[in-house]
């Protein structure tokens, strides 16, 4: 009897210990353990093309959550929108890696329980807990899609075919080069320098000491006279290539698809130095008014079918490799074209966008944070 009683006490104590996080979950700081009924509404900030009717309409029908999406044009804009009005206006955001850490450290997004997203366990291992959305083992979002920033060139005018990023830094195509108008472009220069100037010892293009950072800025300063235009919108770059104003530049697969569909002789590739890339994450606002609908939405866009639809529509790679056969069914050959279910070595060759912060990986406060990147970029363009 006494033993049993002891066991009871122990069990009760254990239950009480478990209760503490459960209670704090109720007050909003812990993880939810189940998804309740939908709230009927869902307000999202998304990249253009991420909330297409072909997968939003069935979602609304299945869950009763009406989707209201606001498109953002840049990571900076996403962060601004998530913070405006005390952060209660939007329930979630499809943040890229260069926005996600800012949102996490700014306490704008809530921790997420991946156990509530059934398809999460099917994701490629590298995107289950990537450093751009998981901090100290806590998940702040669920990965969505990813893709590389490629080297795009006109096959008729750029000969021989380029194999290195050096082609956008050399005067050979002076006045015909275009790169994105985005401070994160400094990482592309750093990536190239990590191979071209090993003495700088750049290991991570997003964690740059001031010496490494200045070397990258100097490279970009030398590149500036070669630039036709720093493009702000994907459609700008498409126009530049279509009209012959640019023949080579940094790009996304989306532009390649659009240009090839318009019969412009272009090709893209990942040069020998590797490439930077983006990996997007659906994140939930820390002050979301419709968290249940948001969980349902993340679960929905993680399913193989929606993953495949979105990958083909936008030209990117699904986080869920179960989408690959569906991609081929929807558009033959598309799975291979977008590296669906790519090998770990391909994935690792891409240095994904992440927010530069002052603390380097070695724990020292010697790295340049994103504010410095923004200032340097503005002054570079000046």
């Amino acid at each position, binding site marked *: 009897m006494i033993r049993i009683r002891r066991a009871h006490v122990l069990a009760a104590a254990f239950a009480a210990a478990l209760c503490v996080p459960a209670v704090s979950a109720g007050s909003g700081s812990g993880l939810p353990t189940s998804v309740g009924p939908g709230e009927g509404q869902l307000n999202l900030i998304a990249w253009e093309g991420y909330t297409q009717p072909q997968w939003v309409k069935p979602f609304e029908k299945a869950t009763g959550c009406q989707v209201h999406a606001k498109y953002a044009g840049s990571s900076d804009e996403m962060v601004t929108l998530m*913070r405006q009005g005390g952060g209660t206006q939007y329930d979630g955001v499809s943040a890229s890696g260069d926005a996600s850490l800012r949102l996490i450290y700014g306490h704008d997004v809530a921790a997420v329980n991946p156990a509530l997203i059934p398809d999460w366990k099917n994701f490629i291992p590298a995107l289950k807990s990537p450093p751009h959305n998981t901090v100290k083992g806590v998940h702040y979002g669920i990965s969505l899609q990813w893709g590389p920033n490629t080297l795009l060139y006109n096959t008729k005018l750029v000969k021989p075919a380029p194999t290195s990023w050096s082609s956008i830094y050399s005067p050979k195509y002076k006045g015909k080069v275009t790169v994105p108008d985005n401070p994160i472009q400094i990482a592309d220069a750093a990536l190239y320098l990590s191979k071209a100037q090993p003495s700088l010892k750049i290991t991570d293009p997003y964690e740059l000491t001031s010496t490494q950072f200045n070397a990258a800025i100097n490279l970009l300063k030398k590149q500036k006279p070669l*630039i036709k235009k720093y493009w702000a919108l994907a459609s700008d770059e498409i126009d530049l290539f279509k*009209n012959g104003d640019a023949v080579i530049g940094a790009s996304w697969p989306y532009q390649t698809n659009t240009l090839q569909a318009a019969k412009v002789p272009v090709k893209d590739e990942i040069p020998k130095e590797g490439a930077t890339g983006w990996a997007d994450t659906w994140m939930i606002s820390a002050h979301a008014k419709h968290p249940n609908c948001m969980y349902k939405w993340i679960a929905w866009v993680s399913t193989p079918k929606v993953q495949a639809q979105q990958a083909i529509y936008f030209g990117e790679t699904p986080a869920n490799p179960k989408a690959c056969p569906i991609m081929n069914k929807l558009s033959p050959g598309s799975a291979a074209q977008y590296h669906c279910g790519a090998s770990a070595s391909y994935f690792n060759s891409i240095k994904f966008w992440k927010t530069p912060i002052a603390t380097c990986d070695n724990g020292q406060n010697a790295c340049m944070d994103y504010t410095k990147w923004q200032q340097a970029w503005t002054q570079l363009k000046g």
Partner: protein
Amino acid sequence: MATSLDAAEGLSHRPPGRPARAARLRLSGLFWRHSWAKALLLLAPPLLAFILVYLASLAALFISSFWTIDPFTSELKHVWNVDNYRTLWQTGAYHSIALRTIGIAAAVTLTDAILAFPLGYFMARIASGRSRAFIFVAVLLPLWSSYLVRVYIWRLILDDKGVLNWALEKVGLPAANLGYSNWAVWLIFTYVWLPFMILPVYGALERIPDSYIEASRDLGAGGWTTFRRVLLPLALPGVVAGSIFTFSLTLGDYVTPLLAGGASSQFIGNVVYDAINTQQTPFAAAFAAVPLAVMGVYLLIARKLGAFEAL
């Protein structure tokens, strides 16, 4: 109820059911006796809107330029300082951006004035009623289409395989390569703001009596002298009035440099836009104060030149 009946009793010589009319009469009497009250009532709504919407937002802009942003949380910190202005003052890139903005605005204004003067002269003094109406429509018609559309059209004209290079090639000239450069920005601004210069110049030229020109001729002045000593001084307020539009519109724009500019085409507006997008609102406010100051100086000069009488 009782009091209103009494009141009706007191006004028994008036037909019943007219207390509203009586009140109206009393009110209009009041306004007749105190004309300032009428003016106040008429002006109150626009004046209130002007003070609240217009001046208050400018004041808010100016005040917030002395605050800072916490770089970590992006929260506004109400700590008075001049760091934003110091950054502007100490950074070479911002000098060149401000100078570029002011320089292109001045170039656009000058070009528009040179283009608008002969056209305004023709409309005011030579064209018949019909051709004048036609020119009016032609000048104003572009304003009916979206500004954005017109910028994109110019991009198509100026780009590498555009109409301009195609035409130059046909006549055996080398390609102009104006697309995505400060030349393109200057050209597009000159085009889109031209109507705002033509109209005041036309107005000023039309007001010059014919007799002045006849008198000038009678006194032996040639065409050039008449232009220089009679027409130009009398039309100058119109030109300056038009220049207020062309100069300030160019100064505040950021769309054309963004869409048609090249690698070095940043305007003050572009930096402000970027700063707001990165939550550096106080810095954006500080830089936005620069065109405000420039315009203030410009308006003072314009007033000296008599532009406000020509508006």
